[in-house]
C-alpha cells in the first residue's frame, strides 16, 4: 500500500547492513544520537509526552482552574461521567454523526472519483473544484454555512418559495444534524475523491481493454474491475473518515456551537465546554481520557482489520 512514488522500497530494504559494526567509537555514536534525535525527543517529550501524563493526573483531581487548588479525588470524576446525561447525548451525536458522514462522504467521494476519471474535458479543473473545500479551515467553513443556511437561504426562500430554503436549518435538532452533515460532506468528499482517484488511475489499463474486447459496458467494468481493485482504498477511506468525523470540532464550533439545545454538541466540543465554559478541569480531563480510549479502540480495530485483509490477499 504505502506510497506509490517509492518503487525502490522493497529493493533497498533487503540490502540494509544493519548488523555491521562501525569503526567509530560508541561515544561518537551516542553523541550523534543526541545531536540528531535529541531535539525531537525534547520537543516531543517536553510537551506531548509530559502533557499526556499530566492529563492522566488531572483526571484524578477536582480543579476549577481559577485558583491553584487541586484536590485528589481518585476515580470520582470517572464515576461522575457515568451519570452525565449531557456527555451521553454528545457521545450519541458523535457516533451517529461519524457513521452517517463516513458512509455518505465515502459514497460521494467514490462517485466524484468515478466521474472525474472519465474521459471528458476539464477533468483537472473539476478535481480542483471538488477538492477545494478541503483546504479551507474548519472555522471558515462553519461561518460560510452559517451564512448560507441563514441569511442566504432566507433570501432565496422568499424569492423562490422553495421549501428547502425555508427550513430553519440551524434552528431545530433534526435539521441541525443534517446541516452539520452537509457541511462536513462538502469538506470531506473531495478529499476522499483524491484518495479514490489515486486508486482508480493505478488500476491496470489492460484489464479494461480486455473487458471491452469481451463486450463489457462501463457499468460492468466498473463493478467487476474498478470496485474490487480499489477495495484497499475504501478501507482507508472508511477508517480515515471515522477517525476525522469523531474528532470534529472547528466546524461545529463555528456553525452551531453545539446548538440548538445542545443537540449538535460533538464529544470534542463537550470536553472543551466542560473545561473552559464550566471550569471543571478535572472532570473534563476524565472525559479527555475516555475520548482517547475510544479513539484508540477504533484505531486498534482498524489495524486488526487491515492486517487481516493483508493476510487474506
Amino acid at each position: 500500500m504505502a506510497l506509490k512514488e517509492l518503487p525502490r522500497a522493497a529493493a533497498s530494504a533487503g540490502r540494509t547492513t544493519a548488523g555491521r559494526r562501525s569503526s567509530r567509537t560508541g561515544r561518537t555514536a551516542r553523541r550523534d544520537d543526541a545531536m540528531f534525535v535529541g531535539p525531537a525527543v525534547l520537543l516531543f517529550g517536553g510537551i506531548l509526552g509530559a502533557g499526556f501524563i499530566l492529563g492522566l493526573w488531572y483526571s484524578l483531581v477536582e480543579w476549577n482552574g481559577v485558583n491553584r487548588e487541586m484536590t485528589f479525588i481518585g476515580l470520582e470524576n470517572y464515576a461522575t461521567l457515568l451519570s452525565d446525561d449531557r456527555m451521553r447525548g454528545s457521545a450519541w451525536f458523535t457516533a451517529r454523526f461519524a457513521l452517517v458522514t463516513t458512509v455518505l462522504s465515502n459514497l460521494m467521494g467514490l462517485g466524484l472519483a468515478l466521474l472525474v476519471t472519465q474521459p471528458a474535458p476539464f477533468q483537472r479543473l473539476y478535481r480542483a473544484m471538488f477538492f477545494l473545500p478541503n483546504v479551507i479551515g474548519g472555522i471558515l467553513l462553519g461561518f460560510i454555512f452559517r451564512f448560507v443556511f441563514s441569511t442566504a437561504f432566507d433570501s432565496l426562500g422568499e424569492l423562490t418559495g422553495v421549501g428547502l430554503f425555508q427550513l430553519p436549518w440551524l434552528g431545530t435538532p433534526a435539521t441541525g444534524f443534517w446541516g452539520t452533515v452537509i457541511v462536513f460532506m462538502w469538506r470531506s468528499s473531495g478529499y476522499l475523491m483524491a484518495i479514490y482517484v489515486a486508486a482508480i488511475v493505478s488500476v491496470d489499463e489492460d484489464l479494461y481493454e480486455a473487458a471491452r474486447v469481451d463486450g463489457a459496458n462501463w457499468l460492468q467494468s466498473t463493478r467487476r474491475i474498478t470496485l474490487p481493485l480499489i477495495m484497499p482504498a475504501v478501507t482507508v477511506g472508511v477508517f480515515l473518515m471515522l477517525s476525522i468525523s469523531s474528532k470534529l470540532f472547528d466546524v461545529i464550533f463555528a456553525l452551531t456551537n453545539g446548538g440548538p439545545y445542545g443537540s449538535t454538541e460533538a464529544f470534542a466540543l463537550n470536553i472543551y465546554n466542560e473545561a473552559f465554559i464550566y471550569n471543571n478541569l478535572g472532570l473534563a480531563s476524565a472525559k479527555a481520557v475516555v475520548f482517547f480510549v475510544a479513539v484508540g479502540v477504533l484505531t486498534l480495530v482498524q489495524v486488526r482489520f487491515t492486517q487481516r485483509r493483508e493476510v487474506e490477499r
Partner: protein
Amino acid sequence: MTGTTLAPTPRLSRRNRRRAASIGLSAGIAALAIFWMSPMYLVFVNSMKDFGEILRNAAALPERFMSDNYEVAWELADFATALVNSLFVTVLAVGGLVIIGAMAAWRMARRPHRWHKVLFSLFVVAMVVPFQTLMIPTVQLSTWLGVVNTRSGLVLLYLSFGMPLTVFFLHGFVQSSVPREIEEAARIDGASSWQTFRLVVLPLMRPMIATVSILHAFWIWNDFLLPLLVLFDPARRTIPLAIFSFFGVHSDQWDLATAALVMGMVPIVVFFLVFQRFIIRGVAAGSLKG
C-alpha cells in the same frame, strides 16, 4: 445522462450514441461542479453588496461591483496583522518540523537500536491521541514554560504536536528510498555525520519533505483551537482567530462578515491553486500512509 433521454433511435449510429453519452457526462459533471461551488459563490457575491441588497436577493450579482466592505472588514479584523502572524507561525513551524524531524528520522532509521524503536512506537501511539486529550495540560505546560501569548511559543507547541507524524513519514522514506551506499561514499570521503546529513541525505529526502510540509502547512494555517487556547493578545492573532473574533462582534453584519470570510479564504485557496496537482497527489498519498 442526456444520452438516455435522447432515446437512441436505430438510425443513430454507435459512434453518435457514444458522443451523446459523452456530452451528457460532460454536462453532468459541469453542473455538479457548479453546484459544488455555489456556497463559495454566495459568499463571494454578497461580500460586494450592502446588507439590504443581500436580503433582497442573495443569489444575484451585485448591482455595482465596487464596495467598501473589504476596506472596512480589513480594518476591523486587523487582517494585515493576522496575515503576518499566520505566515510567521506556519513558515517557522513547518520549517522547524521538517528539519528537526528529518534529523531524527534519518538517525533512527540508520541506527535502529532499542531506544529508537521505543521512541518510534511512542510516536506512532501519539499520532492517535486526539487533541482534546492534551488540550488542558498543554495550556498548563505553556504557562509553566512561559510561552503563553507569544507567537514563538505557538511555534514551539506545533513543533511538539507535529513531530510524531513528521518522523513517521520521513523514517519510512529513509528506509525505503534513501540509498545507503551514497552515504557510505560520503563517509569514506571524510564527511562528518552532519555534513553527510546536510549535503547528501537531506537533498535525497526532498520529495517526502515536500509532502509532509504541505500536510503540515494546511494543518497549521487552518488550526484554530490551539491558538485560541494560548494566544490572547489581538495583535498576535492568526487568521482563524481573527475571523473568529470578528464574528464574535459582527456576526449579523453579513455584508462585512462575508468580506471577512473571502479575505480569510484567499491566501490558502491561492496557495492551493498554485500547487494544486502536487497537493492533491500529496494529500492522497499522505492519507494512504496514515
